[in-house]
């Protein structure tokens, strides 16, 4: 069989499906990633109301639950759940493909260009998935919260972070979010094909800026509670 015939057979065996292809799944990864880092940015901004006191934060929480006749929050939840599901599906299948692509490793492989963040995406992602489950059980359902009050989100926020172990886990999770976002925000522009020498610095700087902002402000919440600045 000639090389050309082998290629036709190979490509047909694989098919041309967008979601079956490597690049297609990377685009799914990037698109859901944009939804997720968009969400964490808005989430970080919303929580700034905690610095404005109990009334402001509780009022904001009430707004989230009542917007569009109470439908708004469910639309957000549906979109986020779908995005998280697709993000994890793409990450898992791509990771398995990547591991299968090099069954025998090197004795020593030198990393020249990759960053610690890029090499730990899988781990920071897994820690974030565990954190999200904990975070929902902690401050949304209150299942693992010491004294949860559905009517008073601000009190839940303050009392939740007064437990040092909980605050520490939040801080560690935010550092993982930082690693994940710093590589992910830049990386998604590459997956979408948004590369041009004119915007290369902008892409890096945007990723760094957004990461520092989101992670910095998010870490300030448990620290503010532990130091008594928010009480």
């Amino acid at each position, binding site marked *: 069989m000639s090389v050309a015939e082998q290629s036709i057979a*190979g490509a047909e*065996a*694989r098919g041309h499906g967008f979601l079956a292809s*490597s690049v297609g799944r*990377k685009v799914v990864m990037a698109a859901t990633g944009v939804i997720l880092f968009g969400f964490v940015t808005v989430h970080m901004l919303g929580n700034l109301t905690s610095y404005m006191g109990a009334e402001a934060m509780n009022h904001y929480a009430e707004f989230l639950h009542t917007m569009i006749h109470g439908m708004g929050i469910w639309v957000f939840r549906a979109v986020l759940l779908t995005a998280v599901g697709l993000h994890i599906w793409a990450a898992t299948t791509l990771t398995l493909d990547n591991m299968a*692509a*090099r069954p025998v490793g090197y*004795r020593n492989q030198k990393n020249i260009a990759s960053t610690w963040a890029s090499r730990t995406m899988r781990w920071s992602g897994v820690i974030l998935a565990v954190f999200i489950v904990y975070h929902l059980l902690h401050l949304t359902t209150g299942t693992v919260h010491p004294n949860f009050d559905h009517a008073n989100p601000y009190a839940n926020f303050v009392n939740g972070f007064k437990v040092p172990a909980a605050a520490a886990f939040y801080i560690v999770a935010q550092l993982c979010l930082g690693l994940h976002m710093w590589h992910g925000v830049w990386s998604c522009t590459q997956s979408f094909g948004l590369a041009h020498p004119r915007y290369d610095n902008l892409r890096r700087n945007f990723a760094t800026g957004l990461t520092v902002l989101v992670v910095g402000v998010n870490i300030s919440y448990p620290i503010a509670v532990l130091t008594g600045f928010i009480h």
Partner: protein
Amino acid sequence: MTKNLNLTLHVWRQKNAKCDGKFVEYPAADISPDMSFLEMLDVVNEGLIRKGEEPITFDHDCREGICGTCSMVINGRPHGPRERTTTCQLHMRSFKDGDSITLEPWRAEAFPVIKDLMVDRGAFDRIIAAGGFISVPTGSPQDANALPIPKQSADLSMDAAACIGCGACVAACPNASAMLFVSAKISHLGHLPQGQPERHLRVRDMIAQMDAEEFGTCTNHGECEAACPKGIKMENIARMNRDFIKASLTYRPATSGGGVG
């Protein structure tokens, strides 16, 4: 005059694709720093042949850095420690007396080891055959300026066409992804008018073949760009992704009818 070098090589020896391989230690004594890396291996091999042992098998051809045949991971880096240098153009003056050098083949499911440091890169040929060409009748060359091409497009195309298909990108990639190679081949045609008619077909077919060969996928580490002896840029991968997205959005299956107005 610089002193000759005495080195220790740790070489991956593997009889064929089916056998398990292992590292074997060889001394490389009295090596001139002016030798190329491949000449050093030739000297070691002559010693092995004289002793009646099997010489180390490695790929090589032009020995002037343009054919893309030489391939081996030297101390954890494809083509060795120097940037934009193929193994054949690497000289022993890049090493110090007493150095230990580990030699491994390209490691990828899609590049099975044929013997020792030589791997089968037929997967690249099949990717090219899947779409890395233009379908035009070839005859006598047309006038040089019959088809206007901006200088910048020609330059970008030539930069991508500098890819020699050695596979260092796959070898360096932590995921054994071939996207730098495939994107270079897609870009060098995509920048030129002759490449346009089959542009969308090409990107879909080549990526389908790349996936069928079981290469990994890009996670944007950038190791490929750092290892590439020809300086192919990751910008090409972004261009390939862009073409693939457009091609997937506008894809129409081939029909036997049509064209009737």
